[in-house]
């Protein structure tokens, strides 16, 4: 039996080792971030934004926190892909870049290389509010390496960039992947992130992804989470958007990981910015899926739309917290948010918490939240045409998810997700 104190001690030792003998801006950032983490500690349910998710039990294990790159990976790992998807594949092993495909107009490097070359200083950890996010602070202090993806000015990337996160370890492991994406002016790209966990040991992943979408750039960012039950995923993603930019985030969470906590922030720092957040979570067994999102309208004439849908089975639990923050200057803001939940079991629970903070007076904002079970009349209608109950239920779940799945613009990815939904739900219902 161990507790989070000994885990903290390990992090402190790691921090001392990482920063000894180093100087420069990165050291300062790491130092400050570690101090912030020390001050905040791991979040408890006393924090408003962790009220429904008690993360501490998920941390009580003997985790290996360093030197994970010495673990061997099977050679065939890059075969992990989505049927029919034509993409540039970027494989990360325990957070480290192993292959960087050569792509016209795209620079891919390890963070360490980017730091050495001086390309990361302007962006890395520059706009994320670590003081409010203990896990992001911890990652910033201790990430070992990671990748920087830069989409160059005016470039339209020919194929999606598919980042495959792979994890392997010989004991329980705590990993802290870090990704920095910079979409330069007028560029256009699609990024897909998927994960493959190879070991049977407990995996705790604390990831940070920073995205910068510069003037008039467009980025579609797909995150597909379907990890095994032995894994726990805490993620922090922030998109910082400049004027006229478009950022679309699609987060799909499938049954699996015991804990999924996604923090997603869009910081709209220019005018005429457009942001979409689409989410679909399917929770089963004893799973806990927590999505905390925040859209910060800092400038006038921006549009944001958020749609998160959840399907819950068994004794699973889901949390949705959606914050829309409209700053005083952000006149003519249009901000919409919707969260709908379909509960397939009496024992599943969902906490849905919309938060609107509006300081401007000429805005259009709306939010809505629902939780319910199957519409009996719809089910009867399908059955009355000869469709069996199980098939009818699957049709209704797929139809419920349709609003989100239909937003996926890459056909092979959409088909893959639809297949996963069907595969994960074609069991008997309660």
């Amino acid at each position, binding site marked *: 039996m161990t507790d989070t104190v000994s885990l903290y001690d390990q992090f402190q030792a790691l921090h001392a080792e990482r920063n000894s003998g180093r100087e420069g801006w990165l050291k300062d950032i790491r130092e400050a971030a570690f101090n912030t983490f020390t001050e905040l500690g791991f979040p408890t349910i006393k924090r408003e934004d962790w009220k429904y998710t008690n993360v501490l039990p998920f941390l009580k294990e003997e985790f290996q926190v360093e030197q994970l790159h010495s673990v061997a990976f099977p050679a065939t790992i890059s075969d992990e892909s989505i049927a029919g998807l034509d993409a540039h594949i970027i494989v990360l092993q325990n957070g480290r870049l192993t292959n960087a495909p050569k792509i016209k107009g795209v620079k891919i490097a390890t963070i360490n290389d980017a730091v050495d070359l001086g390309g990361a200083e302007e962006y890395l950890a520059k706009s994320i509010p670590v003081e409010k996010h203990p896990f992001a602070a911890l990652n910033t202090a201790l990430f070992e390496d990671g990748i920087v993806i830069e989409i160059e000015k005016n470039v339209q990337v020919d194929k999606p960039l598919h980042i495959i996160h792979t994890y392997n370890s010989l004991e329980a492991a705590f990993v802290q992947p870090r990704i920095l994406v910079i979409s330069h002016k007028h560029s256009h790209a699609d990024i897909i992130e998927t994960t493959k966990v190879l070991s049977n040991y407990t995996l705790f992943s604390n990831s940070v992804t920073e995205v910068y979408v510069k003037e008039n750039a467009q980025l579609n960012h797909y995150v597909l989470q379907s990890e095994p039950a032995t894994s726990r995923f805490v993620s922090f993603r922030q998109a910082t958007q400049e004027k006229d930019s478009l950022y679309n985030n699609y987060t799909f969470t499938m049954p699996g990981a015991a804990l999924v906590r996604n923090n997603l922030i869009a910081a709209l720092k220019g005018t005429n910015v457009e942001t979409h957040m689409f989410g679909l979570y399917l929770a089963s067994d004893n799973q806990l899926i927590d999505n905390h999102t925040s859209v910060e309208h800092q400038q006038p004439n921006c549009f944001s739309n958020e749609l998160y849908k959840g399907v819950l089975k068994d004794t699973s639990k889901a949390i949705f917290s959606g914050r829309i923050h409209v700053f005083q200057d952000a006149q003519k803001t249009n901000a919409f948010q919707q969260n709908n939940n379909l509960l397939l079991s009496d024992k599943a629970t969902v906490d849905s918490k919309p938060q609107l903070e509006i300081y401007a007076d000429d805005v259009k904002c709306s939010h809505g939240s629902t939780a319910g079970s199957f519409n009996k009349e*719809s089910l009867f209608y399908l*059955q*009355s*045409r*000869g469709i*069996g109950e199980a098939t009818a239920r699957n*049709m209704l779940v797929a139809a419920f998810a349709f609003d989100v799945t239909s937003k996926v613009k890459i056909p092979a990815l959409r088909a893959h997700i639809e297949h996963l939904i069907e595969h994960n739900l074609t069991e008997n219902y309660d």
Partner: protein
Amino acid sequence: MLTINNLQASVEDKQILKGINLQVNAGEVHAIMGPNGSGKSSLASVLTGRSQYEVNGGEVTFEGKDLLDMSPEDRAREGVFLAFQYPVEIPGVSNINFLRTAMNEIRAYRNLPPLDAKEFLKLSRERQKLVEFDAQLVNRSLNEGFSGGEKKRNEIFQLAMLEPKLSILDETDSGLDIDALRIVSNGVNKLRSKDNAFIVITHYQRLLEYIVPDFVHVLYNGRIVKSGTKELALELEERGYDWLKEPFESESI
């Protein structure tokens, strides 16, 4: 084809059907009329297996089989069809995929191979024409954003596709303008044959000018209080239902 014997049913402990007797044979069209709340739609619901209804007496046999013992989908697979009074909108389920799934599940139940895409499409086109159903609606989400008339026409289109032995039309005429009523009725009349049967539930005699019934039954307070031929419908149109209520009510005191 269908034999209903002393059927009794309730919803939430309220007795709705109090002993219905009805015999429907192949080739016949039966109209069931009656004032609001008399149990007309409840009868349709009980026959097709809507779960809110509890059957607490009597039996129903369909082609010699115990209908009440079957799941709603098995009743459909045996050949019973309900045209809904209020067809459900299901966004995200495409009309055509829904029909294809339904059709192939019914065929599987009858040990028939699934229709291939080409055959299905051909049949679909043919039946759309038969019931004057707009081809564009076929590819939309099931009933989503359809007008009242379009929904009812979709019910008849489904009927035409699934070719049931017994069709129950639950107030299919309500909310239809005269053109839509004519189209729906024409569709039904084209589908009538010596091998199938219809139960037409309606509040108004108007529909029966287009779909001419062989028999008319008046349902009141959970029982069939009068049966006759199509002339009975005309009489009801003229005299209303009150003359039928009175003897029944005095009888029950």
